[in-house]
């Protein structure tokens, strides 16, 4: 889309751009209205003015919709293990994100343990074990087709006994409409709570950045099963913008905590609303 003047055409283009970023029709309409009002209020005239105004407004809206105390990854340094549970649909990037985050914590000098609780998918345990080797972090595994909760039990026991700073739990991908698989996740959470009642510190839904409106249903159903503390938005190095997180934010106040920017261990970043807004509007202003 081309910048013309600050007129209706511009905001039509803006709305189109939001829809094409998977923000969803309703949210795109709401955001466009808010951004149009703000641009008028600020009397934005030049291209640069406008860019500044809409980016700032989007960040303001994003911040308003959340809880300032829960924007970044949480951890406690009381000597107790921080347990992070990773959930999400098939192929979203859970295992890879765990590998990347393990590297980050390791680089910060923390002790990290991984739990290979996807005992279902072919090659899933081997995949996490390979990540463990790459980033030099031990992995707790169970027998093939073992009950995933039993692996989580063993890993929790070990993490607590060894005073690990972090335990990152990998789970099998599951579609949110599968009742039995969702209750398996509940069982995993219960297993953690049995030994560590205040954990998980983070329960993160991993979302593929190219997902469309189904991501909203994912967020709602996973949140019902294991109360979510945040989102990880992966594969943002592709042609998708992952705009559906704005709709999720609107409806559920859930923050994006991490973004995936590639397949390497270092391709992980904290979510930054301003950067995100700039990226979103990049083609427009």
């Amino acid at each position, binding site marked *: 889309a081309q910048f013309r003047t600050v007129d209706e055409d511009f905001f039509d283009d803006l709305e189109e751009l939001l829809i*094409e970023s998977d923000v969803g029709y309703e949210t795109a309409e709401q955001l466009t209205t808010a951004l149009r009002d703000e641009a008028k209020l600020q009397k934005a005239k030049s291209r640069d003015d406008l860019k500044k105004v809409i980016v700032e407004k989007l960040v303001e809206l994003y911040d308003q919709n959340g809880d300032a105390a829960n924007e970044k990854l949480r951890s406690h340094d009381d000597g107790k293990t921080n347990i992070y549970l990773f959930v999400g649909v098939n192929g979203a990037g859970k295992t890879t994100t765990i590998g990347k985050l393990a590297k980050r914590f390791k680089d910060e000098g923390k002790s990290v343990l991984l739990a290979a609780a996807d005992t279902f998918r072919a090659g899933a345990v081997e995949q996490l074990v390979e990540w463990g080797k790459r980033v030099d972090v031990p992995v707790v595994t169970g027998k093939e087709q073992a009950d995933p909760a039993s692996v989580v039990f063993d890993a929790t026991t070990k993490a607590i006994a060894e005073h690990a700073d972090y335990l990152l739990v990998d789970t099998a991908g599951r579609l949110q409409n599968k009742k039995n698989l969702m209750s398996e996740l509940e069982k995993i959470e219960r297993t953690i709570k049995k030994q560590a009642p205040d954990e998980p510190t983070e329960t993160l839904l991993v979302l593929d950045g190219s*997902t469309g*409106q189904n991501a909203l249903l994912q967020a709602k159903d996973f949140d019902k099963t294991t109360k979510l503390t945040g989102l990880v938005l992966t594969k943002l190095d592709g*042609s*998708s913008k992952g705009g559906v997180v704005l709709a999720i934010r609107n409806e559920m106040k859930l923050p994006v905590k991490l973004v995936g920017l590639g397949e390497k261990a270092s391709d992980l970043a904290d979510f930054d609303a301003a950067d995100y807004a700039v990226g979103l509007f990049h083609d427009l202003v």
Partner: protein
Amino acid sequence: MAFENLSERIQKALRNLTGKGKISEEDINTASREIRLALLEADVNFKVVKDFIKKIKKEALGKEVQESLNPGQQVIKIVNDELTKMMGESAATLNKSKHIPTIIMMVGLQGTGKTTTVGKLAKRLIDKDKARPLLIAGDIYRPAAIDQLEQIGEQLNVPVYSEHDEKNVAKIVENGLKQADDNKNDYVIIDTAGRLEIDEPLMEELEQVKKVAQPDNILLVVDAMTGQAATDVAKGFDSRLDITGVILTKLDGDTRGGAALSIRAVTGKPIIYTGQGEKLSDLEQFHPDRMASRILGM
């Protein structure tokens, strides 16, 4: 967001308008807002929606309303028929080579279901055609990708050709094809690493594999939950590789699956199979009419 049935929505929107007779421009404009929303909620690409609405308007304007229908029902019928037509009216099949082996190559973005679908296809060919396939492990990047395919091969009792130290994928495929010739395998299915359609070196790698394998089928594996980018992705892979067909995975979820329409519209290539679960038996023939109803939320 509850998806209200499109059919009900259009009925409601047209309730206060004309009775029987011809479909008026006003009727269509009212209905097309609802159609547009339904398709966008189903993740059909924005531009594809625009074109589709144009087509519907042309198709519907001035049309006699059939005896048994009211104007709302008539519009819905036109939308449904047009969508089914666009999805490809009859069921498409794989290309089969005159001489064995028939070669199938899987391509697509990361995590869409390629490796799993290699196993599903092998199982289907074995069950339906008593085939003797060879699988080639062409993903040398993802951690444990080769293990994954080997485990799938073991489950099916199907051989897997892999090389753990070779860094040239085309070379691995070439060697795998030699083994298939020696063992008279009638099908070869090549797994490849997931990649972005904008990743130049990795897209070039696929072109090299295509060159050495001369596959009869290049199947783009697409996640049914994909949003607006489905058109760019499909165009990207198709323009580089001239894909022969599409497999739409994870349709066992509750996604409306508008990506199917987006891909069809920009590539014209048929969707051949759908993935309906994680088990190797969860592969089904694609049904255009069912997909049309699903996208419309009916």
